């Protein structure tokens, strides 16, 4: 047999040393895993690219040759041209420039209220979930109420009552969104704190602070990041709704939402004015939503064998 021939040439001696390599030779962290997963997803890639582009564009808005606020009646309502890529608005201001400045406001509101929301929500959630008992019950009832409130309505009421503006907007948006995050983080904390590794750490004599910081927070970070991403999306949408109702930032500053509001008067004659900010809102929100969802799958516990 041909087989035999080869065999005879090869030693039947025992292998002297065994390879001790027992660990799979890939080295990576969970974050790298997630990065890989996110980058391998087309939708996520689109979101990241779009968001990067929009954020850079918005940051570089001052490089535009036009002043976003300077009124120039002679340039009123110019159509799209090489000079004004998206034309001008009813005050003769370059629309693209305004949209970029508007994006700053929209994104700022989105990010700020997300940050506040996430920080407050996480603190309350982790605290409540970790302490448990009566404190938890009281905090959660409190959270429940915030969840049961007709938030949009109260946002409108509050925004109308308080002096409208950027700070109010962020405050109001955060006020009505932290509860969601608190719920999520509490549930996660409750589950994490019962896990064996937390019990093990406790049994090593670790104090609550150490456990919270070293074990609970890192392990609930996934859902928090997801909530953050969806939170930005939500805040931007809410901001646009409020601004649309005229409760947003004040002139001459604009956000995408308030640009839509101003565009309303011209919607039949110059729909262009409504299209650009609308599309920007949609794509940005879409990107954050997509990103949130991809992150959610990426963070989902994987069976590692």
């Amino acid at each position, binding site marked *: 047999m041909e087989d035999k021939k080869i065999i005879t040439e090869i030693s039947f001696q025992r292998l002297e040393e065994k390879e001790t390599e027992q660990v799979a030779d890939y080295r990576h962290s*969970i974050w790298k895993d997630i990065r890989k997963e996110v980058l391998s997803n087309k939708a996520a890639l689109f979101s990241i690219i779009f968001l990067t582009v929009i954020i850079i564009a918005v940051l570089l808005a001052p490089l535009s040759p036009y002043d976003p606020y300077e009124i120039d009646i002679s340039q009123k309502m110019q159509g799209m041209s090489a000079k004004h890529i998206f034309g001008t608005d009813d005050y003769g201001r370059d629309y693209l420039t305004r949209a970029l400045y508007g994006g700053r406001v929209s994104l700022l509101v989105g990010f700020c209220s997300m940050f506040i929301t996430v920080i407050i929500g996480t603190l309350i959630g982790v605290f409540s979930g970790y302490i448990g008992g009566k404190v938890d019950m009281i905090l959660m009832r409190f959270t429940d109420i915030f969840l049961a409130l007709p938030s949009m309505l109260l946002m409108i009421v509050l925004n109308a009552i308080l002096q409208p503006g950027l700070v109010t907007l962020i405050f109001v948006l955060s006020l009505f969104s932290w509860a969601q995050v608190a719920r999520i983080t509490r549930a996660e904390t409750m589950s994490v704190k019962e*896990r*064996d*590794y937390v019990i*093990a750490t406790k*049994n090593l004599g670790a104090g609550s602070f150490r456990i919270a910081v*070293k*074990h609970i927070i890192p392990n609930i970070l996934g859902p928090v990041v997801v909530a953050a991403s969806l939170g930005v999306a939500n805040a931007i949408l809410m901001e646009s709704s409020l601004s649309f109702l005229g409760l947003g930032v004040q002139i001459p500053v604009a956000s995408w939402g308030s640009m839509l509001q101003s565009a309303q008067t011209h919607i039949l004659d110059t729909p262009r004015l409504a299209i650009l900010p609308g599309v920007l809102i949609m794509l940005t929100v879409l990107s954050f939503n997509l990103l949130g969802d991809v992150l959610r799958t990426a963070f989902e516990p994987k069976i*590692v064998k």
Partner: protein
Amino acid sequence: MSDTIRKQAELEVKNLKKYYKIAKGKSLKAVDDVSFTIYQGETMGIVGESGCGKTTCGKTCIGILPKSGGEVYFRGKDVHAMSRKEKFIFTKDVQMIFQDPYASLDPHQKVYDIIAEGIQIHKLAKDKNEEQKRVFELLEMVGLTAEHASRNVHEFSGGQRQRIGIARALSVNPKFLFCDEPISALDVSIQAQIVNLLMKLQKEQGLTMLFIAHDLSVVKHISDKIGVMYLGKMVELSDSSQLYSNPLHPYTKALLTAVPIADPDISRKRQRIILEGDVPSPVNPPAGCRFSGRCKNCMEICKKEEPKMREVAEGHWTACHLYDSKNEEVYQHEV
């Protein structure tokens, strides 16, 4: 009994009770009136079916769960009545190994951090260097290498994870180790590695162990003394050879014959006691002896009165009315 007197009791459990509140006015008696003593350097095994309260018993013994009644003394100190400081020292002396190697390691930590945590908490190392040295030492002790320290836990297989868990437990130089079914989640081929490792470590470090398993063969292999639990109660307690050669309680007998034997000839020939039905719910345990519903030798009294644990032969305790006559004095006294 001169032997036992010379031995020092490491863990003394007296009438330990642990009830879980499950609804208003309802409780689940996970552990009900269990007593045993583990002496220094000894390994005690606890076997029983799923849900009979083994884990609960162990966790209550080492103070992870609060008790509902009874007492637990570790080296003479009441585990459940320690001051903060005492408790802190206690955590250094008593460690636990968990059943699920996947759930018991923080997925966001590196192996090094996991093992070093105990050292940091108890300040067992003077500086970083010493800490590192100690971590590497521990890794080697459990059959891993220093190179593994920088890796993430999810790169490891179940057996390796269990080794990491053991290293974590050993990092604070404990005197007492509670192993909660440390091998049942592992593959057959890996189980032996862990059992051997634990036995080796026990010998080297002079550990006292409480070893829980539902697999009787493993328990027999590793323990000096075995307790059999059924529905929150200890039904038989004896040293291991005696338990296997001469089981007293009908449940123990059934349990022993139910264990599969990897030998067709023996397996096919032996007389098996196949129990009827399932373990009843611990929320509404049957009156009298808890095993009465499934017991072939069930008598009238079994349904009415709970049997007490008594020493039937030297060092061999059981809670069964069948053995009442052999111990008439006690029996009459009780009635």
